[in-house]
């Protein structure tokens, strides 16, 4: 079987989700570079998108062409996914810190962000070898935790949005697209990450379809919303 056939088979098995999502990521990166005012928030978003894009390519390469064992690949994916989660959480928290005015929420976000950073460092360095549950379960819980931490600031954003004077049209607010995207992605991903291992362990026949419906599509939607935010041609924090 040629490399190309291997790649096509792999993509087909995953219902082309792992082709479509990095493509959306690439579009977001290009749009971000071309259309958005460069400030700290934009740079954080671009770094996060680039990290995610590179790791997605690496994952695809490893799963298609490499001669590493399945366990080794799994460890690599888990560790890179955790780095992506950390980059994602810190980027969005930085973004939220620029748009949310409630100081108590900002303080809580600082604590949550720091806690998540510690958990990530612990996972990367020890792989939770000291715990009874396998890394395989812990990694999903850590992923779910990230999205759980992203939901409250999103709701606070909408609360403050409705509380303040609606000077700018909602569709022209980059923050509206960004927060809507991450909220959708988070709310759908939390239950899925918690059931993910159960689905794989039981070899559920439509597991790849579930991956597509509850991970790839929401993530791609988030990236499309991010691209839309970049196209607003306004500072992302508006």
């Amino acid at each position, binding site marked *: 079987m040629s490399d190309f056939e291997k790649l096509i088979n792999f993509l087909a098995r995953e219902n082309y989700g792992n082709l479509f999502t990095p493509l959306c990521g690439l579009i977001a990166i290009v749009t971000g570079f071309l259309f958005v005012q460069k400030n700290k928030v934009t740079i954080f978003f671009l770094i996060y998108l680039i990290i995610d894009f590179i790791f997605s390519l690496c994952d695809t390469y490893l799963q298609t062409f490499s001669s590493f064992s399945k366990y080794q690949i799994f460890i690599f994916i888990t560790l890179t996914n955790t780095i992506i989660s950390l980059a994602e959480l810190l980027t969005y928290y930085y973004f939220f810190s620029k748009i949310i005015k409630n100081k108590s929420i900002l303080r809580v976000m600082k604590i949550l962000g720091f806690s998540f950073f510690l958990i990530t460092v612990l996972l990367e360095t020890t792989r939770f070898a000291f715990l009874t549950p396998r890394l395989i379960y812990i990694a999903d819980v850590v992923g779910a935790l990230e999205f759980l931490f992203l939901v409250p600031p999103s709701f606070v954003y909408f609360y403050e*949005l409705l509380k303040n004077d*609606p000077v700018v049209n909602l569709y022209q607010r980059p923050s509206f697209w960004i927060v809507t995207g991450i909220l959708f992605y988070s709310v759908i991903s939390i239950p899925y990450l918690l059931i993910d291992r159960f689905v794989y362990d039981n070899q559920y026949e439509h597991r790849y379809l579930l991956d597509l419906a509850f991970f790839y599509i929401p993530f791609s939607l988030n990236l499309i919303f991010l691209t839309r935010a970049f196209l607003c041609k306004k500072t992302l924090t508006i």
Partner: protein
Amino acid sequence: MQKNTNDIIIFLLVASALILTMAVFIVMILYVYRKKQILFVRDIEQIKLNHEKTLVETQLEMQESTFRHISREIHDNINLSLTLAKLQLNTLNWNNQTESEQKLKTSIELLGLSIKELSAISKGLNTDLIKQQGLVNAVRNEIRRIRQTGLFTIDTIVTGNTVYLDAEKELIIFRMVQEAFNNILKHAEARHAELSFNYTDGTLYIAICDDGKGFEPHAGSGDTQAGLKNMTARAKMLGGVMDISSEPGQGTLLTFIIPCNEYAKRKHTDQSSDGR
């Protein structure tokens, strides 16, 4: 196996319900925001409309006040001078050459005085100067005109970076200053007055003080109260305030605080004093 499939179906149902809830949530946010935005735009338009209405009312009131002023000036000064001139000319006695020459001379002087007064009224009414040279220069011109009456001396002090407001607003401020000086001319019996313009932190502070006979601000006649009320209303319309401080025998201090931070600084730094 059947149990596992059921668990996954339950998960699918829960996940679908979550997606639906999120979609409804976002649609509701859009709806509420849109509704709020419509109300907000309506409020802004109402505020704009009210402001424009007040502006028109103030302009009309200023116009009325100007007409009254012209009417008084014509009646009290020009009319008097012209009547006297006419009287002098009517009673010319051609048989008495010396007396006729004297009367002609007086008539010419009276006509000259009338022309001068007409010219002064015309200059006071001309608002083009404000549009062309700005408020400060127009006020300086007005002060120069008042100085020519020789009734009292005036010092003017301008400090800070001059901010140029739009012509309509500068005209209102100009009329307020003009009215304040007209009051000094008519009622204060002052020997000295001082005018200061201070532009600081996006605010224009105007102070006009005199060493005249002063008055009780809350116990003045109907006209005085109406005049002060008009000036207060004009200052308020510009988003500012007016304050008056006076006591009988202690002179009068009139201050205006007018915000002008929304306007760009168009010209050079104007820090000058041309007092004498």
